[in-house]
């Protein structure tokens, strides 16, 4: 149909319609939810189940076919048209997103119920519409193969995430939401600038096509710099992290789970796409070291600040900043310049860190939310006796903490172990040092929370409001997911390698 079809090496294949469903189901859900809060609450379980099924089906299909799923939207082949593409990384993130969003929906049902006798109230409607919108945007980020389509997805994500931050309407959360919005908009506009220059230089915005034509020239470097800077502002990598703690701590717990677990990972995912898929030949050591230095800074600064927090939700938010730093340590280790084995290990470690952190952080925010509901506050010094009052919740919190600190059995342990191994193999031992230090600090701030929580109070605490057992079980399930990742054999992680472009050694052969 198009002259471009010869250049696009991967043909659309059966199963591509699953990609369309992954994007259209949450979008349809979001639009229908606008009609009313009661309709939204009733439709949500069906949509979440369907979406979970689609995500798992995509993962199984990619695993079976051992190559990415591709779909040309409208039948138009890039460069004129758009493609949706699911490789191993997409499949992993899609499945993670589906599970966390479903858990958030189940957890949030109780908190965002429309009272009887009223047709609609503000918070439930807003919650359901924005949750579906976040899900649609995230799926598009993980599946989009066109850089401008990804820009629209990022904006969708921002518009959905910002009102979630100030859902309770307090002055501090409103200010945090505005600051988040300004940072996010600056990030998007820098990203868009890069997209325009890239089109001007190469005539296409498709990731696969671009990887074939991008050369190490000034336009490519300028574009990579601009887009990375914009995406780093959205991922809250040190030193652009100032907006995150008040925003994630001020949001309602269900929203914080999605914000910290998934939304910040979307822009990180795009950084990975840019560096490894669009411009793999450009990865030079200096730039990668800059990124991981910022990551190391995030780990240390975030952990130290977390140690000093008086409130539990702020501590968890600063912990997010630190854990995001680990993600960026993978860049100098997974680059095309490293040995083939090392780069696979580092990539697996980095993505596993993203996935297990999503589960662990979501579980942690949700359990902090339950604790805050039960106690009426979240001051860390006054958490004695919570372990007696909410044993299931505290167990989930502890299991999630294992992943953040990097202790077995947990996905976080495997991820950090893989990154450590990659660092030592590549001879860049200083990153290993940073990771060990980060682990110690994380242990410190987790202990700060767990010590009073596990101590018995002088008299048993009673929760101010009854905490539903079903919500505790949802939190537990999430935490167990993160532990489960730690005991899986390494073979399933081969999923992440499906669809990776050949390394520079293979390319030059």
């Amino acid at each position, binding site marked *: 149909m198009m002259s471009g079809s010869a250049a696009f090496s991967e043909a659309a294949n059966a199963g591509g319609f699953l990609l369309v469903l992954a994007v*259209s189901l949450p979008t349809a859900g979001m639009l229908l939810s606008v009609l009313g809060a009661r309709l939204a609450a009733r439709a949500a379980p069906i949509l979440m189940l369907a979406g979970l099924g689609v995500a798992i089906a995509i993962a199984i299909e990619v695993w079976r076919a051992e190559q990415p799923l591709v779909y040309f939207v409208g039948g138009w082949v890039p460069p004129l048209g758009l493609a949706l593409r699911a490789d191993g990384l997409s499949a992993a993130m899609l499945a993670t997103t589906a599970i966390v969003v479903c858990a958030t929906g189940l957890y949030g049902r109780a908190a965002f119920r429309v009272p009887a006798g009223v047709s609609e109230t503000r918070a439930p409607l807003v919650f359901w519409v924005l949750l579906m919108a976040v899900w649609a945007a995230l799926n598009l980020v993980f599946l989009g193969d066109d850089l401008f389509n990804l820009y629209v997805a990022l904006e969708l994500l921002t518009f959905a995430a910002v009102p979630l931050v100030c859902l309770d309407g307090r002055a501090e959360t409103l200010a945090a939401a505005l600051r988040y919005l300004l940072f996010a908009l600056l990030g998007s506009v820098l990203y868009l600038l890069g997209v325009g220059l890239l089109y001007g230089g190469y005539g296409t915005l498709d990731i696969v096509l671009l990887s074939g034509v991008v050369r190490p020239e000034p336009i490519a470097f300028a574009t990579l710099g601009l887009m990375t800077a914009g995406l780093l502002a959205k991922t809250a990598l040190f030193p652009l992290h100032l907006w995150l703690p008040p925003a994630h701590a001020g949001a309602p717990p269900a929203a914080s789970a999605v914000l910290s677990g998934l939304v910040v990972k979307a822009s990180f995912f795009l950084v990975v796409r840019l560096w490894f898929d669009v411009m793999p030949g450009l990865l030079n050591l200096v730039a990668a070291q800059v990124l991981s230095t910022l990551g190391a800074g995030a780990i240390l600064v975030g952990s130290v600040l977390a140690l000093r927090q008086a409130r539990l939700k702020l501590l968890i938010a600063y912990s997010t900043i630190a854990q995001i730093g680990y993600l960026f340590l993978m860049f100098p280790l997974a680059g095309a310049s490293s040995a083939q084995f090392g780069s696979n290990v580092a990539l697996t470690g980095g993505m596993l860190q993203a996935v297990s952190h999503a589960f662990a952080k979501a579980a942690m925010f949700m359990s902090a939310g339950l604790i805050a509901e039960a106690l009426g506050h979240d001051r860390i010094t006054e958490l004695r006796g919570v372990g007696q009052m909410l044993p299931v919740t505290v167990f989930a919190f502890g299991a999630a903490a294992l992943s953040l600190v990097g202790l077995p059995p947990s996905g976080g342990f495997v991820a950090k172990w893989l990154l450590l191994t990659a660092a030592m193999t590549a001879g860049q031992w200083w990153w290993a040092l940073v990771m060990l230090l980060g682990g110690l600090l994380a242990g410190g701030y987790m202990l700060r929370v767990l010590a009073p929580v596990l101590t018995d109070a002088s008299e048993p605490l009673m929760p101010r409001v009854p905490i539903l057992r079903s919500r505790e079980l949802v939190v537990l399930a999430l935490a167990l997911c993160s532990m489960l990742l730690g005991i899986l054999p390494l073979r399933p992680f081969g999923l992440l390698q499906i669809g990776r472009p050949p390394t520079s050694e293979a390319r030059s052969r």
Partner: protein
Amino acid sequence: MTLALALEIFLAMLILASAIWTITARGTFAAVVGFVTYGLLLTLVWMSLSSVDIALTEAAIGSGVTGILLLGATARLEVTEKCTAARSDTPLHVVAAIVCALVTIGLAAVVLALPVPAPTLAAAAVANMPAVGLGNPVAAVLLAYRALDTLLESAVLPLALIGVWSLASDQVWGGRPGFQQQLDREGLLVFLARLLTPFGLLTGIYIVWVGADAPGGKFQGGTILAAMWILTMMAGITDCPPIGRLWLRIVLITGPIVFLAIGLAGFVVPGTFLAYPAGLAKPLILIIEAALTPSIAASLGLLLAGPPERMPEG
């Protein structure tokens, strides 16, 4: 140096002057006026860059409704002007100036480094237009080649609206946005509203209709319709509907839902999502545009009106 180039240089200087005015003006009102002027000048630039569709969109949305939004906010925030007056934080200003100058120089260098001949998809776009049946290549890109972008964009508008509505307080949820305007039957505003609205509606619908084959389209036309609605609300002739009404919600989502439905129906006939059956492309596209226009107009108008602030009477 030809006359055309000289005029363009003059235009560019005017634009930079109004941009500098927008950034350096002391009062916010002056800055916003500068920004609206800047937007209108930018419309001329788009014309000289042979992008008439963009010129229409910039005039309507970029400086038109954005200007209304900014002016309204400036009026409400007047008391905060003195409190947050620019502190003379000279080190920050100097560092920022250096960084921004470097960014400008870098971008200018990249503009010079753009390849010649420029890579372009114009030929491919034109070659496929007969299959789509449209005469406006930009419309073909928006509604055929890159239809997914437009679908998502039409979903972004109601989403942003829900975000704006979420800022209401719980007590007035479901109520009417904006302050109630007193109807001044002898006033100029009512006169303007009565005079302009019929023409505006006609022009808006025309621009939507003609967008398939000539510059125009649903965003530009929908903005004009939204502006007419806002004019009648400002004059007090109509009042903003309560946001809790089901019919309003249905109007907001009909456009994107119809678009999505036609897209999913594409699975059945041509076999691909967002593909149009051969020969039916233009009618389907017109249906999509017709469905999207009220949704876009309603979303834009309500985005201007803001979150609900008063409960409906009775």
